[in-house]
């Protein structure tokens, strides 16, 4: 593979807290070496990028995306979804299993991860925690792990039954993998389409309470405690898209007690509130729903204090005709890959003072650690050359129609973004360039 030299960049290695000007050399898809500016001399390289004024950081890692293939390729394909990922600076994405059919077997997992699918960036997958994501019978964790599973989840639905969740945590713990839980007590959310409260009442929509989320989180944490005691195992619970102050309190306390809990927060939950639904905007409908301002602030607080381990988009493409319906009938989910860095920079960095290095840690080094990816999410020589090159202070306006995703269902059309991505490099290949 060809060599590539990136010169005069601001090299930002979030894991090591390294933030200095320098040059980076890529060779054979790996990071070959770092040097101070102009440090590589007498080198013959095939391609050079002058990155003056730009940050060069590890490519972003998203532990939660929906790529809709197989079965719903009118919404997205692995090729289009990963192209959108590249445009958003992501070099690794983890595909959720709620495809049609559900990704719950070695056969479907291998099909998804096969090169023929045309993934533009490194593709990983979490297969279903239970067969068909029906919440009853565990899928074959050991065989799935051998085939590349990085965890198990019934995302979109919770693993609701106590004994099934317990068995899932135990089986995954034996393989050193997380159970990634969509925390929603669906017994409390039937017919609900947004957050419970004053806005839902005024709009005449049934609302999901914050307890529907926190009760499952609290139950799962209790299961971790029991399993650690009874089974001498150390299960890993990953809580997806945490959206409530109440669930975050439980997670913070569990971490303090030393339990192996990680969690993710989505850009829409730290950027928007339920007010975005006003006018019945189906592009502001997702699950968990946009919450009240104090919950949004609690998510930001948890990102600042380290309770949240990573930022994940929950990229969930839907066709226009599916969203152009009555609010209660519209499917949940919004696209998010191309707006994640821009929103994180704007909201967390500019508005709340989180250092850029911390944002990048939340979007690369920490999800890499969560997934136990040893040679991604870092600029360390020898690692995969998964990189993102961007101007951190560049303000721009996102236009949904220009998205590379097949679907344009985003509440961030015409929203202000901070940080413009110029190039994304996956294993040494330039997969996006603006």
């Amino acid at each position, binding site marked *: 593979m060809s060599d590539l030299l990136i010169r005069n960049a601001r090299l930002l290695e979030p894991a090591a807290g390294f933030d200095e000007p320098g040059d980076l050399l890529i060779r054979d898809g790996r990071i070959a070496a770092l040097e101070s500016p102009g440090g590589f001399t007498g080198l013959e390289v095939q391609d050079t990028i002058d990155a003056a004024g730009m940050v060069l950081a590890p490519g972003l890692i998203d532990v939660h995306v929906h790529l809709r293939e197989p079965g719903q390729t009118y919404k997205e394909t692995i090729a289009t979804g990963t192209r959108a990922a590249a445009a958003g600076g992501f070099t690794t994405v983890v595909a959720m299993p709620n495809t049609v059919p559900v990704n719950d077997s070695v056969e479907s997992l291998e099909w998804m991860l096969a090169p023929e699918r045309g993934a533009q960036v490194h593709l990983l997958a979490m297969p279903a925690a239970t067969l068909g994501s029906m919440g009853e019978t565990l899928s074959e964790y050991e065989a799935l792990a051998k085939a590349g599973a990085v965890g198990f989840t019934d995302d979109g639905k919770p693993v609701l039954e106590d004994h099934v969740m317990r068995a899932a945590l135990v089986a995954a713990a034996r393989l050193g993998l997380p159970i990634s839980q969509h925390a929603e007590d669906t017994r409390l959310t039937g017919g609900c389409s947004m957050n419970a409260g004053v806005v839902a009442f005024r709009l*005449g929509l049934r609302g999901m309470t914050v307890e529907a989320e926190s009760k499952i989180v609290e139950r799962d944490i209790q299961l971790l405690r029991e399993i650690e005691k009874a089974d001498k195992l150390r299960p890993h619970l990953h809580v997806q898209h945490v959206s409530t102050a109440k669930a975050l309190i439980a997670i913070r306390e569990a971490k303090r007690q030393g339990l192996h809990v990680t969690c993710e927060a989505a850009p829409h939950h730290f950027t928007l509130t339920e007010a975005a639904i006003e006018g019945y905007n189906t592009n502001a409908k997702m699950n968990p729903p946009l919450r009240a301002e104090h919950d949004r602030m609690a998510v930001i607080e948890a990102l600042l204090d380290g309770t949240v381990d990573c930022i994940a988009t929950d990229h969930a493409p839907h066709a226009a005709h599916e969203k152009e319906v*009555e609010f209660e009938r519209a499917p949940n989910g919004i696209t998010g890959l191309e707006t994640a860095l821009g929103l994180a920079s704007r909201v967390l960095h500019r508005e709340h003072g989180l250092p850029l290095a911390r944002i990048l840690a939340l979007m690369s080094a920490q999800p890499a650690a969560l997934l136990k990816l040893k040679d991604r999410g870092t600029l360390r020589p020898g690692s995969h050359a998964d990189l993102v090159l961007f101007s951190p202070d560049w303000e721009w306006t996102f236009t949904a129609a220009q998205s590379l995703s097949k679907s344009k269902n985003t509440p961030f059309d015409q929203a202000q973004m901070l940080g413009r991505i110029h190039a994304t490099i996956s294993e040494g290949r330039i997969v996006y360039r603006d």
Partner: protein
Amino acid sequence: MHPYPSNPYHPGSLLSVQHLPVPEVGHILGVTAQMDTMRPDELAATLTGHRIALLFYESSTRTRTSFELAAKSLGATTTLVSDKSSSIEKGESLKDTGLTLRALGAEAIILRHNASGAPELLARMTGLPVLNAGDGMHEHPSQALLDLRTMLLRLGLDATTAHESSLKGVTVVITGDIRHSRVARSNAMLLPRLGARVVLCGPEELLPVEALGLCEGVEIERDFDRALAQADVAMMLRIQKERIAGLSLDLAQYIEGYQLSSERLAANAPNALVMHPGPMIRGLEIAGEVADGPQSAIEDQVRHGLSIRRTLLVRAFGAAS
């Protein structure tokens, strides 16, 4: 909460009372009073040659008939599409149904729908003036306007205009299934802005505290007798038996606690105006003799429904003022 959220829809639309600033409410009342003095032939010339579609996804007697009669009295041509006898049954979307009606020449659509927010969707998709004739648990704006006109007239107040103190000193008690009621929401979001004190009454399951957020000044009083004792207007809401089913109180207890009976009315509110948007279930939320009694304004409400809806149609076509 901003009282008048920006309204991106056709200006002739009426989707929510929240899109109506007080002066516009006054204008609607003024036009209504004025049109009530017009001769039938004058009225009939107002919208001659215009086409109006009534799109009904739910059954309706009062609202549908009054909109239809209002449109016809103005000389417009109407067509009724209901979910039971149209391509809606075959799965046609609201968007496509709206576009089809527009292509057939409909210039305004009156929509009754079981999903909250459906009128917003239809207005966005068609760009036409859409009149919300009741959407899910959300709103029934024409009902709130006709209730307002009924109150003003029966209380001897000025019904030709509206301002921030039109209903100053008037306490309106709305009782029953507030949670599922679009009538309650529209009234609770409109009347306080005209100076009324709105008190909501009902058991917690049918009246959650979130209702306080409908409008500044809205209050909750769980005890019906105490609420009634303050009432200048007692507005009763229909109770659907199936909604009582999931509650901690049974039907008999509900009647005991919340039915507007003659005895209760005489004891607590002998001079209050009694209103009900219909359909009412006699013997459940309201006693038959109260509905038929001298304090009742129920038939007035129906009559004013016709005149208010006439104004809303004129407004939809920009023919007002």
